[in-house]
């Protein structure tokens, strides 16, 4: 607390506040563009901060990360195109709400859930960063491996047409993550002699291809029907359609609280990331609902659950970064580069050596949460107008922005080629009922999963019986078995019902 109090005077000046607001605004704008998520936004903004002092630079980049995490809900709700994978569950209920003429309500629910989730997780970061270090040190690779297996299985059951297809998608994602030089031996894997593959397949062009370009291709193939839907979206005229009513708050508030807690928990555990958090939160909200049948058809608590967890993961993933120097997410990994660029080494020593900077970062993060609320409330009306734009205008512009994003993140034409290959794969996945999101999660956690698997095998001495000495891992493996059983049983019921009727 003393750190944060010492930090506020450092950020309460016009210049620093302007950079924070600019970061959040740019992040919100970029996040709202399909396929351009927080990792892209932060990565391409790092060169902008070369000339800035450390606090300004880090506050600006964290503002971008927070803004884009919240902004990604806009395209998910209005276009059914998640700005990034973690917003995919937001689209499940946000887009149906938009089609019912309640885009304004869905956007406000997403904004409030984002701000509250983000603020809650920032306060958790302030409170827990130092104490959590001692607990995090007790988590061994065996537990991490078990948690990752559970997460993949759980998300597979939720996000795909069937558990089997969800698992296939995750396994293919893990396979693609192995392309490149192997971690331990440095030997090339599945590179076919192409040196560009030695560093692995770049994440951002792949994600842009599978999510955004694939969606544009599908929209191009269904443009007549989609333009009709867009016309329907614009017809909501009742005042309650564009604001959060008391009843909406009653439904959304518990989902936001739970989502924030889930987001913090997922963010702290390295490797899981915002997608796991938002899907877990969405699934949990659905399982706790009195009428789960509303989910997928426009449940406001679905949007709130997903967005609160998604945004809570960003600050929470900085907890292991600040406490141990370990990045808990892609965004934390990118931020390490920015920290090092400005002469700051994230880790336990940072608290002792640069307490004033840590306090300033904490204060800037809280200011960014408030800026997020302000910018969201002021500019949501402008974003909501996107629904009136016909598909024949949206597709060319989004395709153009996708190409630019892939070009920047993939190192030129190679990035665009990667984007195209995975856009075709993404279309096939969607049409055949496989989960693009699960594929991407498998890919993102692939390296961490392989490392923890290898270390686990060595720690356990190649004898599964030694798992007895890892009760937390056993609990997660048991939960995996239960999830498989539940999802398989659920699928059988879903199959039987139409046949009976």
């Amino acid at each position, binding site marked *: 607390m003393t750190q944060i109090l010492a930090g506020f005077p450092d950020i309460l000046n016009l210049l620093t506040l302007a950079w924070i607001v600019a970061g959040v605004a*740019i992040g919100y704008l970029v996040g709202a563009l399909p396929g351009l998520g927080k990792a892209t936004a932060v990565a*391409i*903004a790092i*060169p*902008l901060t070369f000339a800035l002092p450390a606090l300004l630079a880090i506050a600006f980049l964290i503002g971008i990360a927070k803004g884009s995490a919240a902004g990604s809900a806009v395209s998910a709700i209005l276009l059914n195109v998640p700005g990034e994978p973690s917003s995919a569950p937001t689209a499940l209920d946000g887009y149906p709400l938009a089609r019912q003429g309640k885009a304004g309500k869905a956007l406000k629910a997403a904004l409030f859930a984002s701000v509250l989730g983000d603020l809650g997780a920032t306060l958790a970061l302030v409170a827990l960063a130092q104490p959590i270090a001692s607990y995090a040190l007790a988590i061994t690779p065996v537990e991490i491996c078990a948690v990752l297996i559970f997460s993949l299985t759980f998300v597979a059951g939720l996000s795909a*047409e*069937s558990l*089997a*297809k969800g698992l*296939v998608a995750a*396994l*293919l994602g*893990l*396979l693609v993550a*192995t392309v490149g030089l*192997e971690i*331990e*031996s440095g*030997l*090339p*894997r*599945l590179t076919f002699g192409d040196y560009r593959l030695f560093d692995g397949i770049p994440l951002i062009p792949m994600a842009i291809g599978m999510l955004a*370009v694939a969606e*544009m*291709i599908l929209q*191009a*193939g*269904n*443009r007549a029907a989609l333009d009709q839907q867009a016309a329907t979206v614009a017809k909501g005229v009742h005042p309650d359609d564009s604001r959060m009513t008391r009843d909406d708050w009653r439904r959304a508030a518990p989902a936001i609280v739970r989502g924030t807690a889930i987001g913090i928990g997922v963010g702290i555990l390295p490797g899981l990331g915002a997608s796991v958090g938002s899907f877990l939160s969405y699934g949990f909200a659905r399982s706790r609902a009195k009428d789960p049948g509303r989910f997928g058809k426009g449940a406001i608590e679905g949007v709130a659950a997903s967005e609160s967890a998604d945004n809570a993961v960003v600050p929470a993933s900085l907890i292991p970064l600040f406490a141990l120097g370990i990045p808990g997410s892609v965004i934390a990994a990118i931020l390490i580069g920015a920290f090092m660029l400005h002469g700051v080494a994230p880790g336990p020593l940072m608290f002792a050596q640069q307490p004033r900077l840590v306090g300033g970062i904490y204060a800037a993060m809280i200011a960014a949460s408030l800026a997020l609320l302000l910018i969201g409330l002021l500019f949501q009306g402008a974003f909501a107008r996107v629904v009136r734009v016909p*598909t*024949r*205008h949206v*597709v*060319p*512009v989004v*395709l*153009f922005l996708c*190409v*630019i994003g892939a*070009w*920047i993140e993939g190192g030129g*034409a190679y990035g*665009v*080629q990667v*984007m*195209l290959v995975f*856009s*075709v794969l993404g*279309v096939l996945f969607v*049409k*055949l*009922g496989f989960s693009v999101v699960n594929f991407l999660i498998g890919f993102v956690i692939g390296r961490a999963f*392989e490392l923890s*698997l290898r270390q686990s095998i*060595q720690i356990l001495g190649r004898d599964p019986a030694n798992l007895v000495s890892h009760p937390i891992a056993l609990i997660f493996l048991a939960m995996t078995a239960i999830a498989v059983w539940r999802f398989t049983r659920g*699928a*059988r019921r*879903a*199959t039987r019902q*139409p046949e009976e009727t």
Partner: protein
Amino acid sequence: MRATQMFVGLILALFAAAMLLWLIPAQIPSGFAGQLSPRLLPQITMWGVLGLGLWIAGTAVWGRGVPAHRPGVFARAELVALVVLPALVLVALWVLTLAGPLAAGTLLVVGAALMMGERNPLALVLLPAGALGVGWLLLYRVLGTTVG
């Protein structure tokens, strides 16, 4: 529907079998003595895909586990878009090397708009102007980077 599912399951199983028997041994060295093989995770994933592919095909054959939501086969317009949009991007990449980002960006936006059925001349001028303007502002002014 069942035929599609069976076909998809078999394709997955065949892909996994080809990976296990041919591609992984050919493309991944077996590693050094005393270390876990670099082939470990790729082989685990492919054994998983092989089993699940056969499971998907099997459930389709026996009519169980085929979900209520049935993905449609490709519509003709979707197939056209699947070929034309990626082809358009590739042509734009080629034009980029010949004529620079302005021509490539214009070709990409106008080509996609025409493919989407836009015929209004004003829209065909304003769309690329707006998109390229935003791109220029974002890349060249705000981010200070370049394309091309």
